[in-house]
């Protein structure tokens, strides 16, 4: 089956991004397809490449980047939610006149239409949030 996933809360603060990660891994292990994960609300904070968690804790952004690269998952960060919260890729930073960007490899910024499209094109949709 095709399963779409929404992550609505930021890393470390809520368990949502962790549970979503474990769920997606299990779905892939069972042979299901997870074509896209959509990061919305504070979920966009998962995509920052500037996170430096303590050595003995998991690195949530790197976990997602690695999983996405191995399984060709489209990690989409909502542009409207990301702009509010200070998550920008190189293009967005230029367009907004900002002197830095912080989106990690494997994530791409796009619109809310990608969330609706995921709802239309997948067989199931599961949301992890607060």
């Amino acid at each position, binding site marked *: *089956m095709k*399963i779409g996933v929404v992550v*609505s809360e930021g890393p470390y603060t809520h*368990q*949502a991004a962790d*549970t979503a990660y*474990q*769920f997606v*891994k*299990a*779905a892939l*292990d*069972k042979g*299901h397809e997870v074509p896209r994960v959509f990061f919305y609300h504070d979920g966009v904070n998962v995509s920052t490449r500037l996170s430096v968690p303590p050595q003995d804790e998991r690195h949530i952004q790197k976990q997602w980047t690695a999983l996405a690269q191995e399984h060709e998952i489209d990690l989409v960060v909502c542009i409207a939610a990301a702009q509010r919260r200070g998550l920008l890729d190189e293009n967005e930073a230029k367009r907004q006149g900002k002197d830095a960007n912080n989106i990690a490899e494997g994530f791409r910024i796009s619109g809310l239409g990608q969330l609706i499209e995921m709802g239309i094109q997948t*067989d*199931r*949709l*599961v*949301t*992890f*949030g*607060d």
Partner: protein
Amino acid sequence: MSTLHTVNKSPFGNATLSSCLGHCLPGDAVLLIEDAVYGALEGSAMADQVKARMGEVALYVLDGDLKARGIDAGKLISGAKCVGYDGFVDLVTEHDRTQSWL
């Protein structure tokens, strides 16, 4: 046609599980994850409300979240079933839709 409901908040602090129990239908399944696993504790102030729906609604608890919180499966309401993340995936595919009670 049936629904998998997921709940992730402690029912002692938050009304979400209560609302979910008030809206799920016979044949549906309720899966407690993250802080909601406490909702399956036998002998708690929530236990009667949960048990009242268990004849018609199946109750599942995410095993990893239970162990993380130090709750022994023997302390759960009788009939509550523990599942892993793989069982979570099966519940999603076996039901027609998933409703996340956030």
